[in-house]
């Protein structure tokens, strides 16, 4: 019988190499980790990705600007609207387009709803990785469903929204839709309350999550980590505040910061961010004006996308996607297609510190640390 289970010697102890993925219940897609363990303790970890590479950037460089929008949906398929937002923002910068007032509000409302969807999904999946048998995940999905139903009514699709247009949005929200959002926002705190009673104070969860996978603020900033993972480490950096893009500067909201940068902080910062998003939604719903939803200049390009030729130049637009800084870099050579198109995917860059966080932890911790980073392989591999 050949010896399959080989061990290596490292520092005088037996090292067992385990392959997590590409097919594994909790790698969130086709992601692979080669984990070197000593007993249950992790001594080395190598993330391997690229299994879901779809040539996103190359495809985009051969398409007219408007036709790239549905492809951005497929980057981070949990919250397509944030991707739409980032791309639209970039192209607007490139072509110096103004966005009507009402459209800005619609954008913020939809993007914040998408942030809520993303955060509850992530928390649900993370708790699933912790071994809570689908209960928190399904409670989260129950609430997510209400928002997705709204997305379906407004944008036409639940996940692949394709909602943003250069200089505005595709479809207006009716008074009925606004009332539905109002209802969702009003009901959400009660759900969060229930969700937190279910597990936030649970001793087992705290044991598992607290002081596990600690990421120091220095490492986080040096590695270019963004989003809730960075904020959980206590660094106050949120592009909504830093850039104040769109109309975020008009809203009153806070940035929740973590203390230790462990898994629990990342979990809890997300819950607090949902609460802040609800605040933004309330304000936006109260202040939303009437008016145009699309810039007059871009209306003809809806029918003829190939006539849309931004002037020669380059632009980098970024938004605070729920996962971190989502940036699009587009270079135009004056043709209908971008000359260069690049995505700064937060999932990919946040993944770089995985080994750092996992060393010295147990195998079970690697799974939840991966879960707490919140990666979507569609975005990581592109």
């Amino acid at each position: 019988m050949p010896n399959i289970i080989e061990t290596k010697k490292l520092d005088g102890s037996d090292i067992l190499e385990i392959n997590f993925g590409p097919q594994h219940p909790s790698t969130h897609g086709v992601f692979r980790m080669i984990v070197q363990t000593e007993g249950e303790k992790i001594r080395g970890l190598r993330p391997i990705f690229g299994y879901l590479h779809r040539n996103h950037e190359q495809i985009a460089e051969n398409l007219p600007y408007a036709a790239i929008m549905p492809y951005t949906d497929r980057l981070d398929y949990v919250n397509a609207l944030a991707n739409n937002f980032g791309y639209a923002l970039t192209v607007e910068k490139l072509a110096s387009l103004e966005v009507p007032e009402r459209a800005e509000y619609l954008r913020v409302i939809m993007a914040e709803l998408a942030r809520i969807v993303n955060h509850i999904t992530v928390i649900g999946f993370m708790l699933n990785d912790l071994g809570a048998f689908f209960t928190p995940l399904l409670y989260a999905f129950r609430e997510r469903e209400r928002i997705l139903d709204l997305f379906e009514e407004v944008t036409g699709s639940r996940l692949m929204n394709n909602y943003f247009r250069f200089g505005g949005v595709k479809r207006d929200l009716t008074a009925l839709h606004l009332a539905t959002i109002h209802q969702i926002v009003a009901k959400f705190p009660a759900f969060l309350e229930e969700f937190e009673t279910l597990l936030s104070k649970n001793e087992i969860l705290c044991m598992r999550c607290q002081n596990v996978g600690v990421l120091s603020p220095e490492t986080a900033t040096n590695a270019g980590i963004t989003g809730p993972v960075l904020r959980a480490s206590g660094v106050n950096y949120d592009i909504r505040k830093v850039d104040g893009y769109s109309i975020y500067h008009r809203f009153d909201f806070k940035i929740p910061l973590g203390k230790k940068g462990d898994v629990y902080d990342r979990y809890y910062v997300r819950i607090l961010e949902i609460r802040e998003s609800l605040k933004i939604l309330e304000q936006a719903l109260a202040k939303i004006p009437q008016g145009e939803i699309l810039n007059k200049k871009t209306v003809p390009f809806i029918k003829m996308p190939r006539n849309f030729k931004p002037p020669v130049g380059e632009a980098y637009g970024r938004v605070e996607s729920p996962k971190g800084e989502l940036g699009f870099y587009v270079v135009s050579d004056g043709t209908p297609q971008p000359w260069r198109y690049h995505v700064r995917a937060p999932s990919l860059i946040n993944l770089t510190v995985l080994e750092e966080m996992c060393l010295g932890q147990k195998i079970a911790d690697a799974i939840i640390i991966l879960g707490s980073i919140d990666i979507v392989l569609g975005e990581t591999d592109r």
Partner: protein
Amino acid sequence: MIFGAGVFKGMMVTLKNFLTSYYRDRDNGGIFTVQYPEEREKLAENYRNLPFLVYDGAPDQIRCVACGICERECPPKCIHIEMATDAAGKPARKPAVFDIDYSLCMNCGICEEVCPFDSIYMDHTFEITSQAGPRSLIRGKEALARSNDYFRKIRPAMAAAVDQKRKTAEDKKKAAATPPPPQEIK
């Protein structure tokens, strides 16, 4: 804080959900799932899935004039159009072939947006699976054609707007074609 209180409270939450699943309705903590083939959720009007071609009157009178804009703008290139020719060999402003590969289509709705002749729209049907292999998902123009009544049924508001637009266009055309009444000339 008593040790174990968190565990206990969590158990109470699941117990509450267990009990309410028996008597509450779905929006208030009752059972949330839909028993799919028997029960169906009402699809939103704007829901878009796969494209179809609209015809007025008889099924072979599709509005499409084979201009090929949707074919060119379709991001995944899932549309294939060949223009028909009449007896004289001239283009007939009608498609001879109009194929959509449903297995490639990504439901983005760009064809619907760019079409200048109001002839292609996104359908509500999503049950298109078959065991006949991927080639069966390439639908020809006969399979794609749906009546305007069907369009009115699935997307009433949009169909009404389109009908209105076409009617005014038609009226304008008529007004242009028929000579204007003499008394208006001054």
